[in-house]
């Protein structure tokens, strides 16, 4: 069953297309990583899915209904980001209790165990927390809500490395016990990739790639060697990135014969998903170096 279905989804904001005919669907009980540059449209997409923002055109279905203004979608979805702010009149413990009142699957025992583990005090006020602590608290709400659709938009902002690690492990363990559909948007693909089943890569408001993580890892490889030989083997349009420092080095779609490459004396090397992401979302094939090309 698909939890989310997008067909030709368009969102206009101030006369700009922030989402440009987006098509994809997300299966039930999967963890998907939403990846893209700043301004690619990740948050816009997530806010439309959560029912906060209106679509401009096309179709969006969450649990089979249009999420905008849907109480049903709201009750079964939680959206966690670093913009969450809460009333100063409520202590952290009050907030957990309020959340518990609203979410039908709320797991207070888990919330309290995480609350204690991360060293929160019941009487603290959300606004007085540091950025990382705020993110950690929001994460607790996101996990304990046990919503069939759980969305984390840049959940680890400000968290230090060990808390981030704890968060990912907590997320996975809770997911194993209570399988649900999870979307995480993150700049740190290398940190989340192990957790993910699928990767949804967005570029300029469009879905650039939607693959399994392993498919993503095998999507492209690096080739080093003689430039003429490289282009004898691969099509120019399959090249995602070129670097001429120390001989020709290209990152290219993995659609050629590796055997032939070896025979030609070309060196094949894997590309980390994080690097691949950078190359896929670059606007030029040379990256920042192209800016300094004056010829």
């Amino acid at each position: 069953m698909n939890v989310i279905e997008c067909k030709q989804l368009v969102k206009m904001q101030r006369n700009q297309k922030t989402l440009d005919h987006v098509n994809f669907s997300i299966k039930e009980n999967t963890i998907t990583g939403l990846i893209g540059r700043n301004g690619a449209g990740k948050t816009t997409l997530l806010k439309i899915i959560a029912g906060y923002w209106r679509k401009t055109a096309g179709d969006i279905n969450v649990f089979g209904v249009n999420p905008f203004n849907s109480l049903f979608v709201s009750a079964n979805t939680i959206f966690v980001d670093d913009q969450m702010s809460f009333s100063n009149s409520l202590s952290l413990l009050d907030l957990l209790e309020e959340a518990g009142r609203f979410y039908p699957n709320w797991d207070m025992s888990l919330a309290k165990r995480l609350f204690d583990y991360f060293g929160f005090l019941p009487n603290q006020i959300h606004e007085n927390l540091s950025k990382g602590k705020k993110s950690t608290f929001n994460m607790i709400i996101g996990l304990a809500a046990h919503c069939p659709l759980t969305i984390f938009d840049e959940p680890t902002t400000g968290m230090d490395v060990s808390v981030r690690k704890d968060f990912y492990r907590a997320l996975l363990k809770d997911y194993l016990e209570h399988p649900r559909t999870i979307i995480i948007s993150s700049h740190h693909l290398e940190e989340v990739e192990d957790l993910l089943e699928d990767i949804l890569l967005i570029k300029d408001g469009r879905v650039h790639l939607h693959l399994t993580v392993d498919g993503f890892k095998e999507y492209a490889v690096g080739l080093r060697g003689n430039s003429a030989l490289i282009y004898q083997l691969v099509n120019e349009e399959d090249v995602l990135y070129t670097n001429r420092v120390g001989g020709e080095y290209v990152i290219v779609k993995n659609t050629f014969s590796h055997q032939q490459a070896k025979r030609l004396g070309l060196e094949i090397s894997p590309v980390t998903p994080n690097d691949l992401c950078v190359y896929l979302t670059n606007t030029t094939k040379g990256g920042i170096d192209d800016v300094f090309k004056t010829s």
Partner: protein
Amino acid sequence: MLNTDHTKPIYIQIAEWLETEILNGNLKVDEKVYSQYKLAEMFTINPATAAKGLNLLYEEDILYNKRGLGKFVTKDAKEIIVNKRKNQKLKNLIEELVLESERLEMRDGELMEMVQAVIMEKREEGK
């Protein structure tokens, strides 16, 4: 335990880890192997990825299915793994070696001598 340079697909790393467990004797013939959920928990990875790793071993007849019970180690598992590693991994490694020795313009036999030397060293240590 898993490769941290993020280049090798995790399901392959999982399969290789299980193979090593079988080679080491930590998993014996007809013994039940970890479920995808257990593996996911152990390595903090997605259970679908873990399942893919298990499936890979199933397809290579290293594991067999018992309906509803999980996956178990086949009789020939060890042999299959050894052969596979000899044929694939070792061959790849040797290819790398030869390529590198060509780059370094080593004379014929020099590589063989080096390999021989390492073997001797290991034997000395073993004594």
